[in-house]
């Protein structure tokens, strides 16, 4: 799998109201990679995600999956939104099964895979509960299981933990990292939280706003055998500090 975004810009509106939101974005994600896109709110991260998902069209440039230009949404690019994306009338299991059932998979297979992915996210005992009966963290785990169960080549996560409390967020970060390690998925994570990006992704693109553009790309070559430990380790803190400073300078220059 090779996802490539080349020279993509996006303008919303036209004429006098035209607003350049993304300017010349280029990045790529290969099979098994965990890539992050980090930037302050309004820098156009979600727009990048929506373009890759095929929910919007680029104004210029090309987005391609394995060389084929993306023309619309498809199940090869799964998506996890920040919140409110579970179907409230479906149980956790029905939510997980939904994509497979939309794709017309045989029932027995759907049931089997649903059970499997609920177990992967540790919710095998909550299969029959409605979303409103689940905590925020559990809801996001269902959303992740649902995206994975539809068998995408790449999972796009748009601030998936942004609405969660700090402590749950840390647990979920560790959960996502383990999931990535265990199941060999390919992930593109969007976040405004630099620590989250550095902690999880091997490659981090840093975006600056107005217009949204990638100003820096960091290969975060860190020892991730123990994330809780990594958070506090000097190399990690140093890298984070350095990037925070450069981001702050960017924001100051922009405003």
């Amino acid at each position, binding site marked *: 799998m090779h996802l490539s975004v080349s020279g993509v810009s996006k303008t919303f509106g036209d004429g006098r109201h035209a607003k350049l939101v993304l300017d010349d974005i280029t990045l790529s994600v290969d099979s098994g990679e965990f890539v992050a896109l980090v930037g302050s709110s309004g820098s156009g991260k979600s727009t990048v995600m929506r373009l890759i998902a095929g929910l919007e069209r680029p104004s210029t440039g090309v987005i391609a999956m394995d060389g084929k230009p993306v023309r619309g949404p498809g199940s090869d690019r799964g998506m996890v939104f920040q919140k409110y994306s579970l179907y409230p009338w479906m149980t956790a299991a029905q939510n997980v099964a939904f994509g497979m059932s939309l794709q017309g998979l045989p029932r027995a297979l759907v049931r089997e895979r649903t059970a499997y992915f609920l177990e992967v996210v540790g919710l095998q005992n909550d299969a029959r509960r409605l979303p409103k009966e689940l905590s925020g963290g559990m809801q996001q785990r269902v959303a992740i299981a649902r995206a994975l169960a*539809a068998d995408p080549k790449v999972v796009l996560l748009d601030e998936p933990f942004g609405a969660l409390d700090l402590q749950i967020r840390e647990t979920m970060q560790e959960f996502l990292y383990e999931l990535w390690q265990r199941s060999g998925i390919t992930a593109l994570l969007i976040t405004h939280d630099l620590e989250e990006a550095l902690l999880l992704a091997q490659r981090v693109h840093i975006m600056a706003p107005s217009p949204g553009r990638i100003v820096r790309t960091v290969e975060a070559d860190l020892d991730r055998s123990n994330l809780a430990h990594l958070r506090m380790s000097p190399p990690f803190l140093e890298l984070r500090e350095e990037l925070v400073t450069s981001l702050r300078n960017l924001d100051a220059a922009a405003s």
Partner: protein
Amino acid sequence: MRSPWLLGPLGIAVVLLAWSLISLSGAVDPLFLPSPPAVWQAAGDQFRGGILVADAIASVRRVFLGFALSAALALPLGIAMGSNTLICRLLEPLLGLIRYMPAPAFIPLLIIYFGLGELPKVLLIFIGTFFFNTLMIMDAVKFVPRELLETALTLGGRKLPILTRVVAPYIAPQVIDAYRINMASAWNLVIVAELVAANEGLGKRISLAQRFLRTDEIFVGLIVIGLIGLLIDLGFRAVLRRSCRWAS
């Protein structure tokens, strides 16, 4: 409040009591205000004669035919308008305009076109509820959260399955509620239609009773109309509670 559900019956009991006291005191001519026992008596007479049941069936039948037609057509049209901007732009101004034409004002036209039979009455109920039903369903569709639709698209969903499997279940509670609310106007309209022209029906009975100054029978008609309306309303609420537990 230890048992708040008692408040409703309490309110009704107070009005009944006041009614009894006023009619017992003789302050109002029984011709204008029949006593509760007199109304009860009139209800018993009508019931035993089979008139009451026949009238109720006639009125309920008209309401159900007209409203079923309205509900069945409003659902696909409302969904189409809510999910397609072109259809919406084309039809919304038209429906918005017709909606404000009072349905009873169509009675003369309906009589000219269709005579005095059942059809014009059923159509009146249709006209009086179809536009409201459609526009309320359209609004419900427009407020389906974008994330729910886009998630379905990224899961491999196509247009039609998304309408039936995401949009339809999401709006179900609002649709049932819209039907419940507009059912009240259907019930008003059937009485209006029967006041104008009918052989039987609760509205017809009231206008006959007026001719003979039978206020007791008018009271019977009003109370029965209210009770049936309340029953229908409770029915819709029960359906809503049972079928959309996720929404409460």
